[in-house]
């Protein structure tokens, strides 16, 4: 099962490596990991997407909680939540393809943020699935490079994660 775990942690040097080290040392897998400071500069918020059985996920959350730098965490996938990921996709855009990519970007609510005579760079912010769909809609040979941010997640409604 895929799980999205959101972690509030001390914004200190080495905190990220403690989490990453825990996953590799105990053989858990990380599908994506994002981290940045919050409005409170002493705290960082991390979103980890991982896969595993219920027992494994239970161990992951317990082991994460045991890290001294972890202030609080929640398994977002236990409840209603929103996931967003940003992708930057640079494509070869020559001739008729230029129109085609413009239409495709519009359909997916993407924006073309850089234009040259031969390329477009498209920004897309959506769920991971939608980004995969977008990539599938483009001829793979036309993609010059892709950068994905990894998933950020937040609970719906009043629920929140704070210290």
């Amino acid at each position, binding site marked *: 099962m895929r799980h999205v775990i959101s972690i509030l*942690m*001390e914004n200190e*040097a*080495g905190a990220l*490596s*403690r989490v990453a*080290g825990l996953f590799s*040392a105990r053989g858990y897998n990380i599908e994506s990991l994002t981290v940045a400071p919050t409005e409170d500069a002493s705290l960082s918020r991390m979103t980890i997407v991982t896969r595993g059985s219920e*027992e494994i996920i*239970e*161990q992951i959350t*317990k*082991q994460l*909680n*045991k890290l*001294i*730098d*972890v*202030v609080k965490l929640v398994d977002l996938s236990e409840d209603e939540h929103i996931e967003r990921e940003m992708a930057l996709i640079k494509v070869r855009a020559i001739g008729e393809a230029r129109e085609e990519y413009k239409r495709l970007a519009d359909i997916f609510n993407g924006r073309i943020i850089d234009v040259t005579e031969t390329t477009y760079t498209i920004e897309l912010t959506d769920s991971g699935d939608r980004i995969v769909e977008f990539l599938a809609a483009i001829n793979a040979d036309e993609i010059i490079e892709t950068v994905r941010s990894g998933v950020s997640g937040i609970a719906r409604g009043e629920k929140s994660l704070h*210290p």
Partner: protein
Amino acid sequence: MVQITRFRGCFYLLRELYTRNSLRSSKAGMREKSRFVNANGSFESVFNVAGAGNINRVAISLKRMLTVELTGAEILVRSLKEEGVTHLFGYPGGAVLHIYDALYQQEDVKHILVRHEQAATHAADGYARSTGKAGVALVTSGPGATNAVTGIATAYMDSIPMVVITGQVFTSMIGNDAFQEVDSIGITRPCVKHNFLVKDVADLAETIKKAFYIATTGRPGPVVIDIPKDVTANKAEFNYPKTVSMRSYNPVVKGHIGQIKRAVAMMLSARRPIFYTGGGVVLGRGAAELTALAQQLNYPVTNTLMGLGAYPASDRQFLGMLGMHGTYEANMTMHHCDVLIAIGARFDDRVTGNIEKFCPHAKIIHVDIDPSSISKNVKVDVPIVGSVPDVLQEMIALIKGGNKKPDEDAIGEWWDQIAEWRSADCLKYDEESGKVKPQQVVESLYRATHGDAYVCSDVGQHQMWAAQYYKFDKPYRWINSGGLGTMGFGLPAAMGAQLAHPDATVACVTGEGSIQMCIQELSTCLQYGLPIKIIALNNRYLGMVRQWQEFFYDGRYAMSYMEALPDFVKLAESYGHVGMRIDNPADVDGAMEEAMKLKNRLVFMDFVTDQEENVYPMIPAGAGLNEMILV
């Protein structure tokens, strides 16, 4: 009026200031309220400073002028003193020279100079295991830190409270591949409870406070503090915090009362119960509560390797150790139980055997301070997160106050069944072989020390024999590397235990393989006059490796034989100790008594034992607890 208080040794300075300038010109009045000599032999005075106008400014500037700033090295040493540290195990080097200079100028914290940094961490560990207090080690940067890692990992696996201070290169040099630089924080991260790099001397005292707090609370463990050399030279005001609180670290103490009630009901309805208890009972200081609870119920008790001593081994209700080399009665009782009460134990693979076959009929209660230990290997029915003595006290009170009592008939039948398993006498061995039997040596040690020694062991067959044949009646007496299985642990751990208990008998049960992994510490023992009794079970084999090769590799003894052993008697003598060689079983008891009489000398007893003796009983890999090999 402003009161200025507690300025060390400042009376004369204050008077000087007063007569000379600022205080007089500000028309402030200053009256000495009291004066006393503090513990350091310097004056502390309390002044009332009164006056108009800029009196606060005067007070602040006075405070600034009079506040004593200490170097990072001095702050470190003073902080250790504040933590009640009496012994510091270490080895000097470039990055920690300031610290050694500060240590040299005081007498409260005694530094023990080991001969290898691995031994510094093991000795601090042995000190911790024999006292329950945090052990402290100090090593230099680079190789000092990497040598210490084995000892840190050993303590981590067994949840031992320890604070390890590692020197580091100058802050400005970190990351530049400087001489003796290593990423100590990175290297130790997977084997510490937490670690800190101190970059500012102003943070040092608080970091030390946090380190001791983290190391000794909740599920204990080692904490590393990495201190760059410039931080030990820089100055700051010294204020050791009385308490510390961390929003991200709040260990649980009280167990959930609803869960405790459920557990008690389950315990009282049991027909075939057993207590399975581990190192958490010793570390959590719950041995007295465990004994009271088990005796209140008249239920059988088994201990893990780490839990020995938590329940008196000479008591009728004790079934011995369980697991791979546990007793037949302990493992059979486990296998057939209907309620398993696990306390401070972690269902390690050496205990459970094949997890599919583990306790097939049992409802499981698990008390542990660490939530991640619960349902990690075996799914449990009633988990209770809390400190062992707190939870057990609640249980004892609930049972005492309630109406329900254990089913005496069922428990009686259960004890009859256990007696039958016991009659297999699984620890019997051939006493007529004409060879010195390792089991016989441990039994002899037990008698000669009246079961009251601190027994430190290395790792291998001798470790299992010590665990099986020495009956530990008290906690903190059995000191061994259970989780990591670190050869070389025994002798330095014994040094830590002996320094903590100078008048007690400390024995190091070892083998000729293990002892050579930290043999250099015989020199440390000489320097500090540590009268450790080394009981070397010398079978000229790496015994446990040989045993497995005999069982599972058709007797192909690859690299398990040592062809070039030193003469241990002469070796001990060359270090200024007493050496003995015993190769006749009839001489074992006499030699043991003779050695114990040498109260102030280290005695190296080289027992030439039966070469191919195996540790029995044994559960082969992949088998269940009911599938033991008895002989």
